[in-house]
């Protein structure tokens, strides 16, 4: 038996989580380093996966399959296609930065007044690694039941990360902070749990229809005609799956948990939510909705495209109206998730490749912007945009990185989000021109909210409160610089990524039996 590489990529951070949690209370720094080392080791394993993956080869590679609950046909089946590889790499890549950025976020407070909550540093980093393990495994699972368990289980560590660790300073004082934090955490949990339970019903329904949970077996049965799902049943099952993914993604009007969760948690956790955990939702739409229910997916496409369009414009407009910079980034993310979902359901190779790239690029760009915003918030102790002004003058490097993160968010060419956004737009436009044109409004609105944010925080006369603000420290620079380098590299040369993703997208498109629209005119060479 060959080395179970995929299991290892998930087992390593899980082991790391246990090890980190077991570090004695006094050795906080050791726990941090341990977590960082484990996350870096996971990155190495993820790199191995990328190297071993052959873009032109079989659909699912590096597969593993073991019997698990044989009475219900549940198997422990793993395998990655190009889409999974890309997202696995993104997750493994971002976690070290998340850990490094949150280095001091869970330190116990200096003063020891009895009502101050003590922050268990070990727990913070252990939970982050736990989330990493579950997310990675969910990108690898090719068994619907296994995926479902991970999809739900990752809510638990996320719940504690959101509810247990917040910004040090809060406008309403510690009491209000704790109340709002627990509200956000409960909202996150309940929202996703409702989605998950509806999905559970659909998972059971799928089993009664298909008699198996294995993606490959279902695909095989479909291909040789031994499995045919009635149209009505297929649609109900599709809706059950899609609802859960749309909550996670999140799609309008199921989005309201995201601004709360991202606003109340610390910046690294907010990155974890939007850049990593939410990607499971959009990833699952590509892998499960389209593959299991191709006909129903096509049936639902018009409605989903409309919702995605609303998400794009609505999220952007709300981002413009925010006074809290973390909530602003959250609404911007909602707009971007609209683009991703639109690309997936445009059902063209440009749209879906673009959507996959979008997931990766949005992860990197939001991480860059959010982490710098977090550094800013740590310095000044406020999330309100109006409390800043003129930061550019006192901390030019911080302002510069913030601007680059912002420019990536507004999809400036030369930075990687442009590639994916344009692909999504072109892919959508070639099948649904009107939808594509309306979505371009998002481009203008993105410029509006990013530049307004930058103008109000970074330019203008220097406010008294920010006058003594230090520029980025070495640790913070180490977090931001590689992300920016990656944004630039993938913006100019995204080919390594597209080569991995394109074949997988072709497979998905053949699942739903769609081909790209042909151009009207055969252009002269």
């Amino acid at each position: 038996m060959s080395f179970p590489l995929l299991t290892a990529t998930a087992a390593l951070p899980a082991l790391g989580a246990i090890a980190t949690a077991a570090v004695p209370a006094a050795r906080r720094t050791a726990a941090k380093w341990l977590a960082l080392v484990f996350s870096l080791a996971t990155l190495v394993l993820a790199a191995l996966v990328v190297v071993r993956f052959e873009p032109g080869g079989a659909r699912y590679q590096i597969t593993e399959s073991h019997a698990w609950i044989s009475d219900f046909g549940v198997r422990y089946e793993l395998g990655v296609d190009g889409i999974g590889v890309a997202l696995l790499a993104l997750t493994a890549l971002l976690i070290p930065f998340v850990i490094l950025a949150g280095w001091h976020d869970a330190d116990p407070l200096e003063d020891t007044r009895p009502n101050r909550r003590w922050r268990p540093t070990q727990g913070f980093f252990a939970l982050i690694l736990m989330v990493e393990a579950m997310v990675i495994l969910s990108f690898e699972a090719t068994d619907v039941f296994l995926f479902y368990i991970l999809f739900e289980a990752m809510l638990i560590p996320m719940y504690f990360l959101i509810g247990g660790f917040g910004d040090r300073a809060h406008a309403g004082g510690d009491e209000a902070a704790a109340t709002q934090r627990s509200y956000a955490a409960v909202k996150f949990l309940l929202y996703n749990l409702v989605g998950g339970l509806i999905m559970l019903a659909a998972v059971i329904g799928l089993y009664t229809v298909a008699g198996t949970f294995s993606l490959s077996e279902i695909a095989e049965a479909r291909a040789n005609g031994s499995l045919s799902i009635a149209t009505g049943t297929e649609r109900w099952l599709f809706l059950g799956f899609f609802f859960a993914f749309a909550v996670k993604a999140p799609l309008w009007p199921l989005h309201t948990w995201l601004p709360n969760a991202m606003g109340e948690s610390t910046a690294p956790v907010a990155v974890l939510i939007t850049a990593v955990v939410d990607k499971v939702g959009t990833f699952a739409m590509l892998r499960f909705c389209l593959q299991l229910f191709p006909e129903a997916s096509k049936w639902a496409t018009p409605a989903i495209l409309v919702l995605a369009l609303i998400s794009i414009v609505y999220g952007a407009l709300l981002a413009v109206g925010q006074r809290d910079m973390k909530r602003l980034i959250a609404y911007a993310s909602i707009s971007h998730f609209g683009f991703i979902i639109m690309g997936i359901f445009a059902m063209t190779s440009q749209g879906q490749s673009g959507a996959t790239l979008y997931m990766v690029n949005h992860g990197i760009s939001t991480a860059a912007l959010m982490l710098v915003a977090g550094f800013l918030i740590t310095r000044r102790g406020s999330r309100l945009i109006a409390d800043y002004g003129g930061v550019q003058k006192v901390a030019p490097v911080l302002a510069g990185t913030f601007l680059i993160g912002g420019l990536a968010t507004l999809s400036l060419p030369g930075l990687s989000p442009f590639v994916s956004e344009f692909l999504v737009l072109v892919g959508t436009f070639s099948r649904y021109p009107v939808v594509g044109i309306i979505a371009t409004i998002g481009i203008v609105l993105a410029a509006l909210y990013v530049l307004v944010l930058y103008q109000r925080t970074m330019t203008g006369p220097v406010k008294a409160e920010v006058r003594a603000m230090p520029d980025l420290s070495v640790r913070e620079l180490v977090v931001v610089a590689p992300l920016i380098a990656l944004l630039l590299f993938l913006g100019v040369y995204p080919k390594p990524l597209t080569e991995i993703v394109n074949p997988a997208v072709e497979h998905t498109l053949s699942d739903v039996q769609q081909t790209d629209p042909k151009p009207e005119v055969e252009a002269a060479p």
Partner: protein
Amino acid sequence: MENLIALLIAAPLLGAAVLLCGGRRLDRVGHWLGTLLAAASFVIGVVLFSDMLGRSGDGRTLHQHLFSWIPVESFQADVAFQLDQLSMTFVLLITGVGTLIHIYSIGYMEHDERRRRFFGYLNLFLAAMLLLVLADNYLLLYFGWEGVGLASYLLIGFWQHKPSAATAAKKAFLVNRVGDMGLSIAVMLMFTTFGTFAFGPVLGSTGDATEGKMTAIGLMLLLAACGKSAQVPLQSWLGDAMEGPTPVSALIHAATMVTAGVYLITRSGAIFNAAPDAQLVVVVVGAVTLLFGAVVGCAKDDIKKALAGSTMSQIGYMILAAGLGPIGYVFAIMHLVTHGFFKAGLFLGAGSVMHGMNDEVDMRKYGGLRKHMPVTFVTFGLGYLAIIGFPGLSGFFSKDLIIEAAFAKGGTQGWILGSVTLLGAAITAFYMTRVMLMTFFGEKRWQPDEHGHQPHPHESPKSMTIPMIILAFGSVFAGGFFAIGERFVHWLEPVTGYHHGEAPISAATVTGATMVVLVLGAALAWLMYGRRPVPVTAPRGSLLTRAARRDLLQDDFNHVVLVRGGEHLTRSLVYVDHTLVDGVVNGTAASFGGLSGRLRKLQNGYARTYAVSMFGGTAVLIAATLLMRAV
């Protein structure tokens, strides 16, 4: 030889990267490095130019394919360059004038602590603009297009500590983004129509597509051009962009940025030729902007804003010419080049004046400067004569040809366009004479600045005057050089095509008419500003004057409709999101909470209450059993 093309862009790009990432260590040499790399790009441009002159016909077009940028199935975007006569013209203009502006900035920005960064941005601007004109497909052009937008954002808002500068920068970027939306839709339309967006295949097969498609693409390209080139209705950013340092204004107005729209339309000539309706719209936009800019330019007391109005108007000429089709493309580009010389010279002159006048921009507080700043006076004066079209100078040739081409459009349209261009020429003569008189002639109206310092006008240092002198040479001789023997027409014809239209009136008549309106405009300005003293505070003015001072109320319209409307929209959406969407969610939670609260009351702890429910339940069960049996 074609391998040099990438170096054209690489040199300034390297400069931008090094200067922006280099940190304070480079503060002492940064400006020299930036200038050197801009000059290096110019030298490479000249080498390529001489090489191009050595070849003939189709051999003049060079291609360089670097790598595949975004390959997804049939969507193939490459990083590849194309250098033909049209790009070459732009390369020389951008790098040449750009280098001069770099040199000028060394002196102009001497006392700014962030000078290194300024040069980094300037280099970035050149690199983006070069990418724009050298790209061989529309997506790469879009890359450069947005890069120009970014660079202009950074430069207009260079003095970020001033809220007005930061706002102006944001406005420029946003208005440009509206235009960019047009370009991206155009690229998408090309992709669905032709399956590609490379220049060669798209422009080579315009005849095969329907006219409706071509019109749509053309209009979208026009929207893009309106944004970058500050044409009505997206012109509002240009005046505010004067918040940037003066060399930036020179760069934006003469060598880069605003010329991009003209380039785009000329480059896409084949598309517009296949879409007469789109061409008509282009011409109308050009004509409207031509008059709009000129009227605004007449009313501004801020020297830079007056010049900005003039730029808008002159670009209007170019867009109009480009909209005329093969009759006008060549002249649009020719006017663009000559305008590049004299407008850069005028802006640098204005900067020099400001430099000597404690950064005062209000022309009403100038006056009589010709004796104190002789070099600036002469170079500015030559630029002035060039722009109004004084016989023999650059502007005379290029503008005259556009007016002729406008008449040559034929029919009623030709007469209307011809009259509009003539009227524009008259107003140009008026407002430029006004600027000249208020600045350099008349009595001194100097006022102390806010710190109480009385200005002591003095000639600027050599680093500033030498570029001005070189540009003045260009302003004087470039037009004649291009026009004699139709050199420029022959140079560009292989790329843009050329068709000599049939004008209803002779060329000599047009020239004569131009001279007449020129004298009229200048004389009127002299009557109003030269013959009698200029008041230091602006008079109230007529309704038109007041409207023109406020950019013909276009900004007010934007403010009321877009800004206020947008604010209301976002505010109400925030409210809706909080109360309605989130309200449903919280409402569901609350209703479950309320229901359980009510159910909880049943559990009151009294054993007898529980006993009642037990007996009641039993009774109900028995009754039900009996009923079932009875049925």
